[in-house]
């Protein structure tokens, strides 16, 4: 029984480690998307501006639409997700601190964040 639970425990730990690695990979992927989005930002804007201008002939606007669609999909800002920079958690992330609520609570209660104090009145 004791042996069994031990192996179970180690398996769970391994699973957790794997999850962590996956989340880190998600962060790396997200970072790549961010770099791409920054790189293609001007092009996106330019094509979109031409597309919105009804003074241009319809053909030219169509072409602009095509060009916009041809850009890499990962260069779109809507594909970016704010993730926790420590754990990679995709939800419950404070934008200002760039960390998840769990990490934030941990660090704040340890006093590692400047100017953050637990409310009490």
């Amino acid at each position, binding site marked *: 029984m004791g042996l069994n639970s031990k192996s179970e425990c180690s398996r769970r730990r391994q699973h957790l480690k794997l999850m962590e690695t996956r989340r880190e990979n998600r*962060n790396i992927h*997200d*970072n790549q998307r*961010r*770099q791409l*989005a*920054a*790189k293609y*930002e*001007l092009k996106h*804007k330019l094509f*979109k*501006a*031409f*597309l*919105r*201008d*009804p*003074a241009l002939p319809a053909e030219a606007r169509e072409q602009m639409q095509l060009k916009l669609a041809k850009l890499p999909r990962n260069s779109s*800002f809507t594909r*970016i997700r*704010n993730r926790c*920079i420590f754990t990679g958690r995709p939800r419950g992330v404070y934008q200002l601190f*760039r960390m998840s609520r769990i990490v934030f609570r941990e660090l704040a209660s340890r006093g590692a964040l400047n100017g953050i104090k637990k409310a009490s009145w």
Partner: protein
Amino acid sequence: MAVARARMHELLKLQASLFNHSFNPSNARTGNSVLRERLIGPAVASYYPKRPVSIKDIVRMFPEWETFDEAEAERIDNIAILKARGKGPPKKKRTKEESKKNKGKKK
């Protein structure tokens, strides 16, 4: 005191030319609203903090330095031993027939 409409129009036009705004009295749809937005690319791209510099990075930066990587040396040694025993990686198949030869067969 009422100001003539034409006069007001003129003023707005001048104002736009002075402050580099687009003058659009008929409120026609132009792509300007897209171009007017601020660029957020650099801020978005720098969301994740940079990796701290490691010893590996320093070694990569100065390839002319003589350094010793124990793990790498051990790995290369192990490969040499395996190769000597005939347990190295198989040779790259050059032609299609060669690569098809052993497919589907279990040995």
